[in-house]
């Protein structure tokens, strides 16, 4: 099966930006081993693209709702990451927004080193 077609199948596996189990089960039965590998990789990539990862230095109530309004139709995944010291790190696909104390301190250190 050509890769272009497989990519279309990956698109069709999502309904309203959510993975549809029934569709996936139907598609998987039709694919060869190599095609399946490509398909699964594509699904993972798409899943990652549809998610926004929030690294938070401490547990904050209501952070999910806040980011859901900023990123509508996206899955919000919140992780607690104490190494940030204070603040947030938002990873949206290949863009990273760093708003943490650790980043500020790192920046000051490298600035002074220069």
């Amino acid at each position, binding site marked *: 099966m050509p890769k272009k077609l497989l990519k279309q199948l990956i698109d069709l596996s999502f309904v309203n930006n959510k993975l549809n189990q029934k569709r996936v089960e139907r598609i998987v039965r039709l694919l060869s081993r190599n095609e399946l590998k490509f398909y699964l990789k594509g699904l993972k990539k798409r899943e990652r693209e549809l998610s926004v990862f929030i690294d938070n230095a401490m547990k904050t109530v209501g952070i999910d709702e806040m980011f859901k309004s900023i990123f509508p139709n996206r899955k919000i995944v919140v992780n607690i990451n104490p190494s940030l010291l204070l603040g947030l790190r938002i990873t949206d696909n*290949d863009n*990273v927004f760093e708003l943490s104390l650790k*980043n500020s301190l790192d920046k*000051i250190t490298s600035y*002074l080193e220069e």
Partner: protein
Amino acid sequence: MADIKTEDIIKQLEKRLTSFAIDAKVENIGQVEKNSDGVIVASGLSEAIMGEKVYFEKGEIGLVFNLNEDFVSIILIDRGENIKEGDKIKRSGQLLSILASEELKGRIINPLGIPLDGKLKIKNGEDMPLERIAPGVVQREPVDTPLKTGIKAIDSMIPIGRGQRELIIGDRGLGKTAIAIDTIINQKPIRQLTDKNQKPVICIYVAIGQKQSTVAQIIGKLKDQGALDYTIIVAANASDPVSLQYLAPYAGVAIAESFMQKGQDVLIIYDDLTKHAWAFRQISLILGRPAGREAYPGDIFYLHSRLLERAVKLNKKNGGGSITAIPIIETQANDISAYIPTNVISITDGQIYLQPDLFNTGIRPAINVGNSVSRVGGAAQTAAIKSVSGKLRLELAQYRELAAFAQFGSELDEATLNQIERGKRLTEILKQEQYEPLDEPLEILSIWVVISGLVDNIPVEAIPRFEKEYHEFIKTHNPKIIEALSSGEKINETTVKQLQQATNEFKKVVTL
């Protein structure tokens, strides 16, 4: 040393911090998907641009080389054994560049500007991009100043001008690098003092895919000859990553451009472009680009044309600087019609062709004058050398033709025999030892003395000794002749008479 107080340091740091802005960091990152043969396939990096420098987690540097729909291909400039699948890649937002300054003179660096000579890192200088569009026609002017190699055969018959691209082509072990090194040695400012109109030349030697021992030998030779003070060595050796070998000539020309912009004249030697083409072929094949003739990619011509187009003579309005490029191409079994040699021959403004037969018969430099040509250098030649070289070419061509005839053993008339004998002496006088470049007046002396027929009665075997002693004699007893020949003006009748007189005097005192 003055004591530095802690308070002063704190004050300095506080002062620096007042101008520091703590902004949120926004990064475009990627992830390693595959690492094979020095090429990284990465996902993400959607904002990366072609030729951009990227950093890996452990500080390794890569260069974006392919932008695909789903992934980005990056060539590694460092060793990449520690790069694993899933590692993060950061964009730098910069194209690859090198710091160029006067500090580089006498230094040995790699194409990233990292010192290979164990000395201090170069921190100051102009940031020069490795890839750059060559100056346009409006900024250029015709080649009109000679770049003297100090090699009689080249300066007289295949002259090189500043801003020219002259190819040295031949099989391995025929003395291609030797010609290039002699040319560098000949640019020594003290030598050039004889000609006051000439600006000093900064030399850049780019070693591509060569053995470290060979490069070390060349550096040693340049140091011995005092030529390293005005030379910069850019080396990407055979053991370095192939990407560095690919980048080396571009790094060399980027440094050259920095000097040229200041109105200086630069000589750059690419040793050699065959290995450069091999490096690019390797990268292209690993990247999966379609292979063409001899498995080279489709843009192999552009690889060298964009590099050699950067050799230029700028007009006065743009500073009047120049870059003279001497690329070297190694042929296999004397085949100059192979893919890369024909490409580079067509790009350059002439070629110096070295032939194994000549080398084996003891003619060194083994230049085949018939197949060698300089398309623009003639305009740069001084009138003095031009007045002797025109006759030289003709006499040599006639000699070659007659010598071929004489091989049949048929009886020849006296005039023909004389011409053959003259040709033998001409061939002998054009021989030159390595690392012994000559000043232009001495080159003219050597050629003139044979053309004028004054050495026809001297045995061919004695010619080298005669030449050496003749130079010494004229230098000590007739410095005015050297002065007249140094002026670059056409040799006038008075000088010819003086020359004849001096030569006859010398012939009386010399015992051969």
